[in-house]
């Protein structure tokens, strides 16, 4: 039954709930696939076969007893980014400092998945503490892009996107602080959604940048992402920044969009996201996508968001500032790595030496940047100015959304690059997120949906759709319509594999 790994989550759910296949065999098929290919891909840091099969058997027992499934996704297995806590199951955040740590509690997202009967296959690889765009910053080695094992799968959630593209899992959870769901989705030809800030609880999401972090659904289709979105979203009293509002009807929106009619929808093309730094094939793919949206009946207009140009520098002040504080707790006192505790070092020295050994270069770089940006005498010039830019970007979005229902742009300026290509050039690496960061700064919803392969290198390109806060359903309507018109992209990976 290896075919099970080629089905969408919606198809699998249907078969499991009608008893055509069992959740256990579905889960086992994916575990087998992981065993077969993950040596090459390295999407997973930890595989929890027993836990996943046990959850699957519970679903099967319920189906056999004629009970209603716990959720529309009950029995469909999933890959969970290793930045969300799982009680008693390792959670490393891709960092050496948390090697061996067994969290005493489940993240709210984890809990909701368990309650929904979703078997968790394991924890996926990521850039350390979600800082990076390639997973090369993982302390446990990089993940490779199934489209080309010498290329990056995006980051920080490269493990989650690669697990989908490699058919190791039909669903995955990512987290997106500056593009960590959308950029990996774009470069692996999968779907990734950053919900409205506060739409999905952050409780148990190990914080990188609290005001930007947002967990979200990843899948191979827009409908699958929508189904997962509804499982994990909703108000959580454990997260003060969680939005206390009904979850947008994203599944309905995806189904409506799939009918292929976008008449009455106004789409804005962001003028600032083109030109220098954008690969020709990416821009051509984007133009084709815009033309397809028109064919679907959408009205397309160009809009200007002048302050988006400052999004990247503002992000690289706010995110490091918050991370310098969020990561202060990794001090060897209560959990995680502890070095130099040999009786000859003071507590302060143990803290300092542990942090020196436990954190990788990129994490240290950002902690130092943030510490500097928050220091007395520099705060106003750096953190304060960045917050002002953030307000201006939010206003740009507000003005644009007075004219249009959604905004579109390429998700990333370039197709996936080679491992090692940008690892010594942080600024080049940071530019990967130039299109995705504004939505994080403003707290909007945004999606990346595959928009074919670049005509110059045959590598995946993503179309980014952005919607106002709490209007996540618009992403799914437009995304599903475009997906239906564009046709599957990931299938070409199968053709490529077959051709090898």
């Amino acid at each position, binding site marked *: 039954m290896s075919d099970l790994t080629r089905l969408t989550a919606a198809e699998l759910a249907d078969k499991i709930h009608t008893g055509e296949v069992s959740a256990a065999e579905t889960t086992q098929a994916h575990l087998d696939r992981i065993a077969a290919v993950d040596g090459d891909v390295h999407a997973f840091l930890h595989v929890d076969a027993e836990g996943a099969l046990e959850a699957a058997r519970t679903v099967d027992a319920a189906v056999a007893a004629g009970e209603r499934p716990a959720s529309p996704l009950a029995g469909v297995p999933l890959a969970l980014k290793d930045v*969300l*806590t799982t009680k008693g199951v390792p*959670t490393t*955040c891709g960092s050496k400092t*948390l090697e061996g*740590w067994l*969290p*005493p*509690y489940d*993240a709210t997202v984890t809990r909701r998945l368990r309650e929904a009967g979703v078997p968790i296959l394991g924890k996926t690889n990521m850039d350390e503490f979600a800082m990076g765009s390639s997973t090369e910053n993982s302390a446990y080695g990089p993940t490779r892009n199934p489209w080309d094992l010498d290329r990056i799968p995006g980051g920080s959630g490269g493990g989650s996107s690669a697990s989908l593209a490699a058919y190791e899992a039909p669903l995955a959870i990512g987290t997106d602080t500056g593009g960590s769901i959308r950029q990996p989705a774009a470069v692996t030809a999968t779907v990734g959604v950053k919900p409205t800030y506060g739409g999905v609880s*952050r*409780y*148990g*999401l*190990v*914080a990188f*940048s*609290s*005001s930007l972090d947002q967990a979200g659904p990843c899948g191979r289709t827009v409908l699958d992402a929508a189904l997962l979105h509804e499982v994990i979203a909703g108000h959580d*009293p*454990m*997260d*003060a*920044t969680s939005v206390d509002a009904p979850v947008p009807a994203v599944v309905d929106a995806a189904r409506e969009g799939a009918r292929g009619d976008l008449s009455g929808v106004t789409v804005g093309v962001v003028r600032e996201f083109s030109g220098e730094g954008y690969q020709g094939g990416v821009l051509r793919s984007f133009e084709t996508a815009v033309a397809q949206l028109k064919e679907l009946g959408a009205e397309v207009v160009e809009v200007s968001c002048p302050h988006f140009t400052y999004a990247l520098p503002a992000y690289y002040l706010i995110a490091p*500032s*918050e991370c*310098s*504080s969020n990561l*202060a*707790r*990794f*001090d060897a*006192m*209560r*959990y995680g790595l502890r070095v130099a505790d040999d009786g000859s070092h*003071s*507590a*302060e020295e143990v*803290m300092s030496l542990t942090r020196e050994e436990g954190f990788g270069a990129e994490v240290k770089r950002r902690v130092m940047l943030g*510490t500097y940006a*928050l*220091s*007395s005498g520099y*705060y106003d010039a750096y*953190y304060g100015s960045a917050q002002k830019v953030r307000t201006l970007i939010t206003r740009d979005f507000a003005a644009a959304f007075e004219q249009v229902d959604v905004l579109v742009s390429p998700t990333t300026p370039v197709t996936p690059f080679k491992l090692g290509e940008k690892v010594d050039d942080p600024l080049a690496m940071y530019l990967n997120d130039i299109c995705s960061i504004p939505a994080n700064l403003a707290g909007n919803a945004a999606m990346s949906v595959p928009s074919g392969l670049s005509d110059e290198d045959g590598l995946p390109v993503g179309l980014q759709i952005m919607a106002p806060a709490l209007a996540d359903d618009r992403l799914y309507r437009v995304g599903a319509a475009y997906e239906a018109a564009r046709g599957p992209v990931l299938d070409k990976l199968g053709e490529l594999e077959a051709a090898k």
Partner: protein
Amino acid sequence: MTTTVELMDYAEVVERYDPVLGLEVHVELSTNTKMFCGCPNSFGGDPNTHVCPVCLGMPGALPVVNGTAVESAIRIGLALNCDIAEWCRFARKNYFYPDMPKNFQTSQYDEPIAFDGHIDVVLDDGEVVRVDIERAHMEEDTGKSLHVGGATGRIHGAEHSLLDYNRAGVPLIEIVTKPITGMGERAPEVARAYVTALRDLLRAMDVSDVRMDQGSLRCDANVSLMPKGASEFGTRTETKNVNSLRSVERAVRHEMTRHAAILADGGSIKQETRHFQEADGTTAAGRTKETAEDYRYFPEPDLVPIAPTREWVEQLRGTIPEMPWERRKRIQDDWNLTDEELRDLVNTGAIDLVAATVDAGASQADARSWWVQYLNQQATSRDTELADVAITPAQVARVIELVGSGELTNKLARQVVDGVLDGEGDPDQVIEKRGLKVVSDDSALLAAVDEALAAQPDVADKIRGGKVQAAGAIVGAVMKATKGQADAARVRELILERVGA
């Protein structure tokens, strides 16, 4: 470690310098749960039993503000005549210390919930001093470190340290005064009176245990001196570890005499944190930091701003009880007390007890007499606070009632109270068990009187001869014979009746 510090004579200090005080008081709120999580907020407990992922700063855990703590903060602000912010945020105060689980303290920085208030403080002689309040803000407490080994009990030189996070995340309100100037020689007394007033206020509001000995009320005293007549403040020191009201006064006084000696000698004060030493009333320098701590404050992104509606604030204003000192003033007027009588009441902590005893039916004079005198002595000899002695105001009122009706003499009444304090039951049960009822049966008393008169015929003659005061000897004999259970006044009457005087 001990170095002899020259101190200036206090009279000379206040002749040459003007002290400036700044008092920072931390109050642990007595909410059921901690500031940002659902763990119980209670003193003590086995180490690390009142903890959860949130207050341990576990990766991924997030804070949620305790609404009751915000309510208490607003009420405290209102009681201190502060403005209440329409919109304010928490901030992170970043520094590394092992007893702080996140290595930042969630506090308020430039947006306190309450600001610009004042409190009127009554000194021992009745003078009223207004202390201006800069701000009152919310924050969380840290855990506790126990440093094992080493001489000082501090982290420096310890062999190892133990950490208890039960206190981590307990809600705190920090109340900061504006500089208190112009107090002259009374500055130490003002400091004590201010902290006393705060304690009484917070106790009356039932928002904190305000136990300085347990750390639920902590005072840091900032002290500086400037030459008489100057207007520019001198360099200050901040004295911590001040664990009683008396220590507040001693610490301020000590710092004044220490500063003055250094300044008079041409030296300069080092801005530093000092620790009060209870044993000898001096202060010792804390560990000096080579560089000023930069806390890198920024708004706490895990919490949303707090915007108390004006309706809510006004509703809370209605819950502020009468200020303790206003209540005292009212009681003084109602009961027609002299300043001295009022001071006795306040100093013994008897005011609420007397009021409750009056409410239970006793006259205020009797109630006051019992609590301020006999019961206060008993509290002292039993080494307990007056409020903690094992008798209720209602029981005291019952004893007073029995004395009033003549069923108990004062002497017997004290024995009844002793019985209650010893746990023998309520007053009536003690009377029953100990057989302490007054002998009010005249025939029984007459027999005793006759017997006593017969035993001392010369005294009987003296009384008959008009020396009425000689009856005292017979009264004494009768009281002895009845084991004190007779009413002495009645015995006297019977004696006079018997001898026909």
